[in-house]
């Protein structure tokens, strides 16, 4: 593909290229000028189709290859966030479970690049730690299908922690109501 052949590039993007794909792509990935053009064409296309995200980055390819590098090998195709949400929305029952919806929206396994040196090494005196436990049966109404997918179980676990933390938190000297405010408002986040 010649450096200035915009028509060919356009055809390639639209899936209407009739030439040798392998050769064209090979040339493309070794040509920064054409690669930049490629990404601009995609941006234009997305913009026309109103598929643009709120924030645009012009370094998509760099981000993608970064992300791929940090990605563990995935054997099964990952569900999208949207799909993840579906079972949870119908499942939002207990206060705790309602939190799951929120959490699945915002959950991210991001790599924390902030390098931090421990500010303080603590030799905690051995205080008897708190122990608590949960009822055998997860809190679920009969009408709601109990789901045993690992994701939902994991979400339930996290929610229980949050509820429990809130309970203690609400005794703090400030913002005692805030934990419950969070609880009450969760549904609109789904």
């Amino acid at each position, binding site marked *: 593909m010649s450096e200035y052949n915009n028509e060919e590039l356009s055809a390639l993007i639209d899936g209407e290229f009739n030439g040798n794909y392998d050769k064209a792509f090979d040339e493309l990935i070794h040509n920064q000028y054409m690669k930049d053009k490629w990404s601009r064409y995609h941006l234009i296309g997305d913009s026309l189709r109103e598929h643009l995200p709120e924030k645009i980055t012009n370094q998509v390819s760099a981000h993608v290859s970064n992300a791929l590098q940090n990605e563990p090998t995935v054997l099964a195709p990952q569900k999208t966030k949207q799909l993840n949400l579906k079972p949870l929305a119908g499942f*939002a*029952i*207990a206060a*705790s479970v*309602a*939190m799951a919806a*929120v*959490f699945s929206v*915002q*959950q*991210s*396994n991001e790599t*924390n690049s902030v390098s*931090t040196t*421990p*500010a*303080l*090494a*603590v030799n*905690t005196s051995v*205080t*008897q*730690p*708190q*122990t*608590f*436990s*949960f*009822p*055998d049966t997860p*809190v679920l*109404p*009969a009408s709601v299908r109990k789901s045993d997918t*690992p*994701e939902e*179980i994991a979400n339930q*676990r*996290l929610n229980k*922690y*949050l509820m*429990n*933390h809130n*309970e*203690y*938190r*609400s*005794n703090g*000297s*400030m*913002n005692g*109501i*805030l934990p*419950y*405010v*969070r609880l*009450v*408002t969760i*549904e*609109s*986040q789904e």
Partner: protein
Amino acid sequence: MRYPLLFLATFLFGNLPTAYAADSLPNPQVLIDEMSTASRTLNYDGVFIYSLGKQIDTMRIIHKSGDGNSYERLVSLTGLAREVIRDKDQVRCYFPENKAVVVEKSRLGKLISSYLPHPIKSISDFYIFELAGEDRIAGLDAWILNIRPIDKYRYGYQLWIDKKSKLLLKSELKNQLGVTLEQIMFAQLNVLDEIDDALLEPSTEAEGFTWYKNTTNERVETKESDKQWKVTWMPAGFSMSDQPKEPLLSGRMSVEHLIYTDGLAMVSIYVEQLNQQPDNTAGASNFGGVNTYAVFTDGYQITAVGEVPKTTVKLMADSVKSYH
């Protein structure tokens, strides 16, 4: 310039109104103490706005105190008509959309000793308190108070406190960059002599609702072989909360819970034994000002939960070690 408004007033009018004289400006830490007492001991009924990201909700809170106890009812005025009712024994959460009431044990007042008044002293080493000016919220004159963390391991707050009743009128939780993560603001707040008990009753007709209770008092025996856990890293000023041992709940799963606080922020560490490694729970989650971080090690999942930046929950969760 600590009090720019004041300076301006002096400049413009030549003399300070007596109320603003430097010696009558409230001490920020005393103000926080008074706020804390006011929120527990007064009777009040108010409507406030809660905002998180793009979401805005309105809620009503009714608080009654008597016999040294607090009774509180929180009702959502927007969206689903959820309610939370708290007294000294129980927290009842009504979820009308699911015809469910979830009852949790109330820990109201149980931890007071570990927060007041001692922490006010110790937290001043890790947060800078300053009076930032005056404002008007819900028709009431308020002091604005800034609480800025000294490092990146905690969040800051900006508080608006009613000059008269000392109740909290507005609160913003801020990250290191000063970005507001969530806020509440009263639109109306009335301090009352009496609160009718009827106002503390749920408006939800709970007929046909399913009740889920988690309030039993049986103890779980701790096995001799159980591992002990401790957090080996935490931000300066954090220490394990000295709360009294609570009655333990019965159940199949027993989860160890360690609480750490710097007097203002609180981080819970949960350690739970799992038969197999969960494939999707590791990592960070966030809801408003609350961050969580989970790691899996040696058959145990360790989860840190707290109103602190993600860095802090991550570092704390990663630092948990077992010993015998």
